[in-house]
């Protein structure tokens, strides 16, 4: 699998660390809402299909990416920096090295 890092370009999956479900929302730090914390820490969206995930390019620029990837075909639909902006081209058609 190749993931196109918006900074480094297409790189082998070996350079990346999976940080899981990108749909989770961390409660406000001072929140005492245990249900919300429980959902954030333990519950995951786990779809068979397109999934928005966080990956770190740990073996490269170390930036975190938001990757939309199909969990059945492993096709990568988009990648962008997790901190926003810098969206890379949709590489469904064109992610050749």
């Amino acid at each position, binding site marked *: 699998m190749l993931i196109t890092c918006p900074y480094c370009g297409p790189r082998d999956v070996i350079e990346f660390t*999976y940080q899981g479900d990108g749909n989770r929302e961390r409660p406000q730090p001072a929140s005492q809402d245990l249900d919300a914390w*429980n959902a954030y820490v333990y519950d995951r969206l786990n779809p*068979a299909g397109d999934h928005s995930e966080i990956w770190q390019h740990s073996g490269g620029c170390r930036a975190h990416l938001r990757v939309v990837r199909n969990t059945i075909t492993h096709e990568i639909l988009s990648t962008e920096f997790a901190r926003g902006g810098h969206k890379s081209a949709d590489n469904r058609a064109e992610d050749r090295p």
Partner: protein
Amino acid sequence: MAEYSAFSLLKNALTGNKDWKPAWRKPDPKASYDVIVIGGGGHGLSTAYYLAKEHGITNVAVLEKGWLGSGNVGRNTTAVRSNYLLPQNTRFYEHSMKLWENLSHDLNYNVMFSQRGCLNLAHTPAQLDDYARRGNAMRHLGVDAELMNVDQIKRLVPALDVSGSARFPVLGGLMQPRAGTARHDAVAWGYARGADRRGVDIIENCEVTGFLRDGGRITGVTTTRGEIRAKKVALAVAGSTGHVMQLAGISHMPIESHVLQAFVSESLKPIVDTVLTFGMGHFYISQSDKGGLVYGGDLDGYNSYAQRGSLPIVDEVMSEMLALFPGLARVRMLRSWGGLCDMTMDGSPIITTGPLPGMYLNCGWCYGGFKATPASGWCFAHTIAKDEPHEFNAPFTLDRFYRGLIIDDKGQGANPRLH
């Protein structure tokens, strides 16, 4: 249906093997059942078997979307062991071990459970202490465990590099002698035949597409072969748990589905006579009766429903293999495959009533599902029949995360890929 035995083999051979009957029937689904078990894998089939055998509940259907045993029961590395650290896990897996030890007789089907032992290699003094902690924990629960020194290990597995010059030299290991391997497909077929003989309908090529409800209660399923009603609907769909729960309207679970790859070498004369694990990586290996080395390593490390692995893990596994067996560099990997692992947030399973009324849930097997097959079905059948868990599966609730009653054998926290 005829009992299997040496005698029946001989008798049938004389008649040209023309009289053998199907190992299980291929019935059409009835309109309703007492219990529907979704998932015709090892756990689903053993659940049906024990519902019938232990609880007399025989009006049961097992629904399988593909061919029977097409999930992880046919895609694993066949190891059976109960060498866990935490008592909740050890008790459960030891119960499984005891069922394994009599399983071929129980099923009248040779599942080839071979108690050739499972040896965890240790490479640092600290790791040896860790293994001692685990082995002692097992011993305090009445489970067999012993420490082996390098000489003993060398005698057991002569092909292993114990020279001490290795990057991670072998210092010793934790052995569970009663552990071993079984013929994975035979487990599915044996349970299927056993359940079928007790009246259970096993329905292949029947995919669940939705749930029937009466108010909040689950009352059946819609399938590619029509609606089927049931008093109780039990899920044993392992890697597909997230997907099937979504059909029931539950989108979030403490589970991620991951791929685990496994590999088989070409057939060789016996060279590894036990189940062996590498302490400085994720590698494990055994040798099948046909002679293939059966081995694997770490998860690919990301969500997947593809039963399709990635290349870096292949390289990683082979590197670790040769660190232990430098003589096997010219042996060749013949087949590889991927299985879906329903990884939970603490690495331990879930066998529980609910979470919806009328529903029963069995999932979260991570990559330990095969060895759990008998106890998983046994406990799940109890839970379904009695509407409460057995003592063995009482800790494996869904709300244990919320309550902080986590059972984290590896101590990795809510990071499924690390369990």
